């Protein structure tokens, strides 16, 4: 499932609104996080057999298997290339970001 970015996230406006120490509700994403990627993994859907090795190994969990074809969430993929390296049929290619 694609993570939802909370639009218009309200940062604390006063001392009272500050979280107590560095701890707060988990799973709150306030911005997309993929700006440092210079290579993007692209799946050749015709060759892909849905073996799910990439889905299992992706360190950021950005590959979705809930759709008929595997989908990569480029909002959160950091472009590490692990999926392409591990893909047994080499159906994932790292392409240069524009």
């Amino acid at each position: 499932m694609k993570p939802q970015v909370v639009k218009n996230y309200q940062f604390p406006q006063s001392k009272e609104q500050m979280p107590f120490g560095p701890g707060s509700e988990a799973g709150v994403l306030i911005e997309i996080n993929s700006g440092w990627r210079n290579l993007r993994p692209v799946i050749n859907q015709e060759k892909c057999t849905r073996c799910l090795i990439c889905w299992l190994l992706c360190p950021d969990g950005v590959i979705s298997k809930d759709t008929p074809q595997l989908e990569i969430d480029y909002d959160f993929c950091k472009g590490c290339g692990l999926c392409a390296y591990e893909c047994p049929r080499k159906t994932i290619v790292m392409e240069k970001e524009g």
Partner: protein
Amino acid sequence: MEKKHFLSGDEAVAFAVKLCRPHVIAAYPITPQTVIVEKISEFVASGEMDCQYLHVESEHSAMAACMGASLMGSRTFTATSSQGLLYMCEMLHYVSGSRYPIVMVNANRTIAAPWNIFGDHRDSLSQRDSGWIQFYVENAQEALDVTIQAYKIAEDPKVSLPVMINLDGYVLTHTYELVDVPPQELVDQFLPAFQTTNKLDFEKPKSLSFSAPPEWQTEFRFQQFEAMEIAKEVINQVDKEFGRVFGRTYGGLIHEYCCRDADYVLVAMGSVAGTARIVVDQLRAKGKKVGLVKLRSYRPFPKEYFQDLGQRVQAVGVIDRDISFGYEGAVYSDVKAALYRPGAQVKTVNFIAGLSGRDITKENLAQMYEPLEALALGEKVSEIQFTGLRWT
């Protein structure tokens, strides 16, 4: 009914920990602390204590384990000394920055090199800025009582900071005295179960000890600063409440002896305060107006107290069982900074003494009052004096 036991300082701490009913103990041995976790392991083995006793692989892991347990809402305990304290240094900051009320006893021991297992304060004072509350105790009874107080202070929601209780290696850890061990019912009444406000929870998942960017780091540091300021008041209140329940009080942040009309006073931390009181009595019998300030809480530091003291005495000597090379004793720096307010005429001198377990004798202490008297009379003395140094 309180029961008297013949206990070493380490054993007194173990009895206190048992009475506080912690859920998780992380144990890694190091001299002269080992007897504490050894005695606790006996309590656990015999069924007298019901808790998870973790044999961890290092002091760093001990503190990490305590932090993990604390964020699940467990009351935790660990103990260490010297090199062990330094090894867990990174985790000390994690725990205080994340605001987990862990209680730890540090059996004071010097730091290598030269290697030595005996006591001074160089280990704990090197962790001054780790964000932990630091107590220094004088005897086994105070070690037991302050351990019980420490949980109440640490777990106060307004404070929520970790507490390190410092116990002089060997002089306190391995010497025996009669100790009043309070009954469990009284301790239960004084110290209710730990209620965390910052818990890992399956129903309401939280992200804990997260990173804070430059835009937010200062606000979290201000929270820690404020909590320490609040702790000053809480430490005094808890000591008074302890007195009402158990009949013993220690004065909170500091304990004064014969200071009301004193011309010159010594400031000391830990076990040497007991010896110094005898010396004060002897000098008072000779008509000298001397006093003693036992500094109990090094962090938070009783700044306001020393600001006031600087207005009413003529000379203050500070005993440091440590030295900050390139400057002076660490306690002296703090005391001096608080004493000297605009207009203060007080004179000061620093005694570097009791390093690596060297005894601070009654004669040493009596001699420390001599330069203080000279200062009070307007004479000059050297500011930093090494007690008992063979040659310069």
